[in-house]
């Protein structure tokens, strides 16, 4: 009996030792093994991640590898493989930026046009959704407000093809000799005496930017106001009452209560806008200019459309004749230039905004 008890105590000690050893072993197990165990327990979730990872690898990351073609010559007769093509270094980018041929002129023209259109967009397109949100917030009748709001969001859901088709149809010039009436907006401008009957508004480099920006505003101002409207609604009504007690009129209230209250939203939207300066939508521009005479490109050709023309993918490549094996190198170099400046702009705007206002995207 006594002996048995003793043996029992020993076995407790043994048990304790075994336990410690087990814990020690557990800790000794390599990190990889523990990862493997977690991975094994989470396998259904990783299976769910397979589609997205495959998609992003193939269609978002693999194109980044394709960027190397900007530094290679590519001749489909020799090899169809981007990665096996011979290197040419920075030749294409250098030629494009500092060359003496017509493409260099057109490249810088596209660069200037991109900036000009974006700046006009910033100047007119950026404030209008803010003003619209201010106006919406002033309308206290819920029915009227939601009807007008929903109505003004609608164009955002209409395709670019439809919008540019409407521009094409409504801005068409008339032809007096063929007895063809101008499009309805063109007709209205003729009636006002603003333009002669046969003016082709869409094909005229002098009008292109205004039409582009105005139609952008028509299309996006209502939808763009949503985010500002939400910011205004989040401002506490007591702030306004306090301002009123201090004798603030409506303009003072907007200046000292509303605008500071929506400052973070304004900053973020401005950063996004500045970051996107180089990404003027190519789809709309190619659709607007495709059927027009070539010289509208004087003001309409932006970097992205220039890249598409350079790469012989869409639009006329007039004035952009390249040796066939360098087409890919040139267009991709232009793309790379575009991406890098765009990234620089995003980071720069973000940096400035963090310095100035403590608000930043990242």
């Amino acid at each position, binding site marked *: 009996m006594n002996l048995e008890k003793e043996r029992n105590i020993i076995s407790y000690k043994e048990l304790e030792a075994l336990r410690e050893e087990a814990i020690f072993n557990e800790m000794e197990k390599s990190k990889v093994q523990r990862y493997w165990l977690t991975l094994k327990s989470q396998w259904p979730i990783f299976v769910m*991640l397979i589609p997205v990872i495959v998609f992003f690898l193939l269609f978002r*990351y*693999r*194109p980044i590898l*394709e960027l190397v073609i900007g530094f290679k010559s590519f001749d489909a007769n020799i090899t169809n493989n981007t990665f096996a093509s011979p290197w040419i270094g920075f030749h294409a980018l250098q030629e494009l930026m500092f060359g003496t041929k017509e493409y260099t002129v057109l490249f810088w023209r596209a660069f200037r046009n991109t900036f000009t259109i974006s700046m006009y967009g910033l100047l007119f397109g950026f404030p209008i959704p803010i003003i619209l949100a201010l*106006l919406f917030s002033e309308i206290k009748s819920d029915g009227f407000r939601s009807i007008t709001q929903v*109505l003004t969001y*609608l164009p955002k859901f209409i395709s670019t093809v*439809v919008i540019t088709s*409407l521009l094409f149809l409504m801005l068409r010039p008339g032809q007096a000799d063929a007895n063809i009436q101008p499009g309805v907006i063109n007709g209205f401008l003729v009636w006002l005496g603003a333009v002669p009957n046969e003016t082709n508004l869409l094909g005229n480099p002098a009008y292109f930017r205004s039409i582009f920006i105005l139609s952008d505003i028509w299309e996006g101002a209502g939808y763009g106001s949503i985010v500002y409207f939400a910011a205004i609604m989040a401002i506490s009504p007591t702030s306004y009452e306090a301002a009123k007690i201090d004798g603030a009129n409506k303009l003072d209230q907007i200046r000292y209560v509303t605008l500071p209250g929506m400052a973070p939203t304004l900053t973020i939207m401005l950063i996004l806008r500045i970051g996107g300066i180089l990404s003027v939508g190519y789809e709309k521009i190619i659709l607007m200019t495709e059927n027009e005479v070539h010289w509208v490109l004087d003001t309409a050709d932006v970097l992205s459309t220039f890249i598409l023309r350079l790469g012989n993918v869409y639009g006329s490549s007039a004035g952009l004749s390249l040796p066939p094996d360098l087409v890919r190198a040139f267009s991709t170099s232009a793309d790379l230039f575009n991406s890098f400046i765009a990234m620089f702009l995003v980071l720069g705007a973000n940096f400035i905004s963090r310095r100035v206002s403590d608000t930043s995207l990242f």
Partner: protein
Amino acid sequence: MKRLDTSEIIFKILAYVLVTLFALATLYPFIYTISASISSKNAMDAGAVVFWPVEPDFLAIKAFFQEPEQGVRLWRSYTNTLFYTFFGTIFSMGVSIFAGYALSKSKLLFKRQIAFFIIFTMWFSAGLMPTYYNYQALLVSNRWGIIYGFGVQAFNIILLRNYFQGISQEIEEAAVVDGANELQLLTSIYIPMSKSAIATVTLFYALSRWNGYFWNRILVSNANEHPLQVILRSIVAESGDSETGFDYPYSLRSLAYAAIVLSVIPIIIIYPYLQKYFAKGVNVGGVKE
């Protein structure tokens, strides 16, 4: 009744006037398009249609239903667009829901790395030409290529993830005790509880499929597989030829406006039901990590 001072009253009047004007300016092209699509050839040629329909005879609209010459390519492209929209949205939603759900798991291994892998594509993309060459290299140039090669957006995945993260853990734990596996958790708890977020994302995806033009145009070489937007584009461009069109009982412009009406109708019909969702979508889409 709160007292308003003069400046407030002026501003209020201004707000009503300007908002009304803006709403009318938004509405006008839609009304004009409908009017122009149903007005008679005489009225269109005389430039008499300015707002309301003039001598409506619906001939241009009817042409798409009665004349094979106009109807065949429009309805074929319509069918193609329905195909792209239906299967494309299912594909995009499937991938995005799985991804959003997986990333919403707090204990997911490599969670930060995977999230970064996805969010990075929002800040940096290779650009147009490399993307184009990539699609060429992977031979994404038929109907199915358009379905699986496009339409998964990092933004939408993050939007779904944020919504899933907001769902209470307790319900999930109770279901786990009852022996539910991950797929059952997703389909019987998370999806039913995030109807509005899912509706928003579905709307975004479906719209981008319905409205897609550029990549379809440059990647799909077979004209029989072209979607509505590509065909709509050529119908409108043809209406610009002043030489043709005298033989038809309707104005070619009316035909172009009619094609626009037919292509936009589905959006206008579902818009009132879905508009409440996207305003929400804009606000919950903040990126956090």
